[in-house]
C-alpha cells in the first residue's frame, strides 16, 4: 500500500478535513470564479481580493474528493498575501510539478525537484502524479485561480 500513502499524505488528509481559507468574500470588491470538472463532478469556487498587485485575500468553497479539496486549501494558504506575479509563478511551478513524469521525481538532481522544494507544504501533492487520473483533481483549484487572475487582468 506504499503507493496509496504517497497519494494520501497526512498533510493532504489534514487539509481535506480542515480546509484553510474556506468561505466567501463579498463581490465586489472580491472577484468570484468557478471551476468544474465535468468528468468527476468536482467543484471549486475562489473569491479573490486583489489590491495594488497583491492577492490580499482569498477564500475557497467547493466540494469533491480529498485531492481536489486539499489542493484548493493548500493553494489558498500558499498564495494568500502574495504579489500576483509570485502567484502566477507558483501556478506555473505547480502545474509543471503535475506534468512531471514519475521517474524524474525519484531522481534527486532534477530541476523539477528544485521546484518541489520551493513549494513547501504543497509538495505533499507530488504523489498525485503517480495516479494520472487524479491529476485533474489536483489542478482544478489552480486552473480556477489562473482563470480568475486572467479575468481580473481583462477588466480595467
Amino acid at each position, binding site marked *: *500500500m506504499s*503507493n*496509496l500513502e504517497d*497519494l*494520501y499524505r497526512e498533510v493532504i*488528509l489534514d487539509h*481535506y*478535513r480542515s480546509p484553510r481559507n474556506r468561505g466567501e468574500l463579498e463581490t465586489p470588491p472580491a472577484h468570484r470564479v468557478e471551476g468544474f470538472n465535468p*468528468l*468527476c*463532478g*468536482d*467543484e471549486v469556487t475562489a473569491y479573490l481580493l486583489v489590491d495594488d498587485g497583491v492577492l490580499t485575500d482569498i477564500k475557497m468553497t467547493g*466540494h*469533491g*474528493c*480529498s*485531492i481536489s*479539496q486539499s489542493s484548493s486549501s493548500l493553494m489558498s494558504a500558499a498564495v494568500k498575501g502574495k504579489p500576483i506575479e509570485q502567484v502566477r509563478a507558483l501556478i506555473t511551478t505547480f502545474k509543471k510539478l503535475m506534468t512531471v513524469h514519475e521517474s524524474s521525481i525519484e531522481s534527486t538532481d532534477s530541476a523539477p525537484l528544485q521546484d518541489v522544494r520551493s513549494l513547501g507544504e504543497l509538495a505533499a501533492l507530488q504523489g498525485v502524479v503517480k*495516479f494520472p487520473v*487524479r491529476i485533474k*483533481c489536483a489542478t482544478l483549484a489552480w486552473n480556477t485561480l489562473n482563470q480568475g487572475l486572467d479575468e481580473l487582468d481583462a477588466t480595467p
Partner: protein
Amino acid sequence: MATGQSVTSFDPRLVRADTPALARIINGRPITYLDSAASSLPPRPVIDAMSRHYERQHANVHRGVYQTANESTQSYEGAREAIARFIHAPDGAEEIVFTKNATESFNLLAKSWGAKNLGVGDVVLLSVMEHHANIVPWFQLRDAVGIEVRFIPVGDDYRLDLSNIEELMKGVRLVSVTAMSNVLGTVTPLQELARIAHEHGALIAVDAAQLVGHAPSNVVDLDVDFFMFSAHKMLGPTGLGVLWTRRDILAEMPPFLGGGGMIADVSTSGYVPAKGPTRFEAGTPPIAEAAGLSAAVTFLEGLGMQNIAQHDRDLTRDALARIDDEFGGRVRIIGPRDTEQRGGVISMDVEGVHAHDVAQVLDQFGVCVRPGHHCAKPLMKRFNLTATARASFGPYSLVSDTDVLIEALNDAVKLFG
C-alpha cells in the same frame, strides 16, 4: 477448462472460470470486478466468436454472393434472430434494429418516432432516476420541436413515486422509463406503467440496459412498445446496441441516419428508404460484434436468466446486510433495502470519504467499483449527492467478492478516520 457451451446449470464459479479478465492480478491481488453495471466482462465463447469471425469468414454483409459474405450475413441476421428470441419479440427478427449502443437506440427513438409523432404540447414522461441516455435525447427533441419533458419523482424509499401519476399523465404521448436504475438498483413496475400509459393512449419505452443481462426479458408479458439496450452489459461486446419495437410501429418510423444499406433507391434528385429494420442501419454494421452478441445470448440462455436473477438477489441481500453490520451508518446505501424488485447494484455514500477516494483505496485491493454520478445527475441532485461509489454484480460474482469489498472499505474508512 470449462467452456461456455457446457454450462447448463448455473454455477457462478464456472462462469468465472470462463471469464478470462477475472484471472487478472491487480496490485498483487486477484481482481475483484464489481462494475458490471458499467460494462460486463465477456466470457471466452463471446471473445472467441468474434475472433473466429475475423479469422474465418470476415466480409461485409448483404449484397455479397460469395461464401464468406453469405456466412457473415447469416451470422449477422442470426444475431437478430437470437435477440428476438431472447426478448420474445412477437414478430421475430423483423422487429430488431441494431444500433451502436443503447444511447443510439434512444436517439433513434426520439429523432425518428419522436420527431414524426410529437410536437408542441405533447409530453414525454421520464423519471428522475433515468440515465442521461434516456434524458438528453428528449431535451434535444424538446429544443427541436417543442415537446414538454416531464419527470416522475422518486420517493425517499428510492422507488418511483406514482401517487400523483394521473396528474402527471396529462398530455403524455410517451412514457420512457428505466427497467432498473443503474444507481439505486430499483426495479420499476413496468407492467403497471405500461397499463397506465396505454390507458391514457400513450406508448411506453423501456430502458432495459440494466435488465437484459440480469433477468428474463419478455416484451409481450411486459406489454411495452419500445425496448432498448446494449450488448456490452449482457456479456457481449462494445459497439452494439438494440432497439426493439412492434413491427407496425417500426414500419411507420421515418429513417434516422442516412447512407448505404438503408435505401431502396438513390438518384441525383433524392432517395427512397428501405423497408424493415435495415432502414435504420446505415453503413457497414457491427458485424463481428453481432457474432459476439449471438454467443452472449447462447451463454446467458445456458445459465438461465431466472438463475442469474436469483444469484443477483442472493449476493445483494448478503452484501447489504454485511455492509450494515460492518459499518453501521458510516456507509450509507443509496437504494432500496429490500431485495424484491431490486437488482445487484449497490451505491454507497461513505461518510467523510468522497466516492473517488473510496474507489482509489479500493483499487489498491484490486476492487473495481465506479465512483461518480453514473450518468444520472438529476437523481444525484434529488438525493443531494454529487457522487456515489457503486458496486455491481455479474453472473461471475461470488460472495468472496463482497468479502474483499468489505475488507477494502474498512481500509478506506480507517484512512480517512
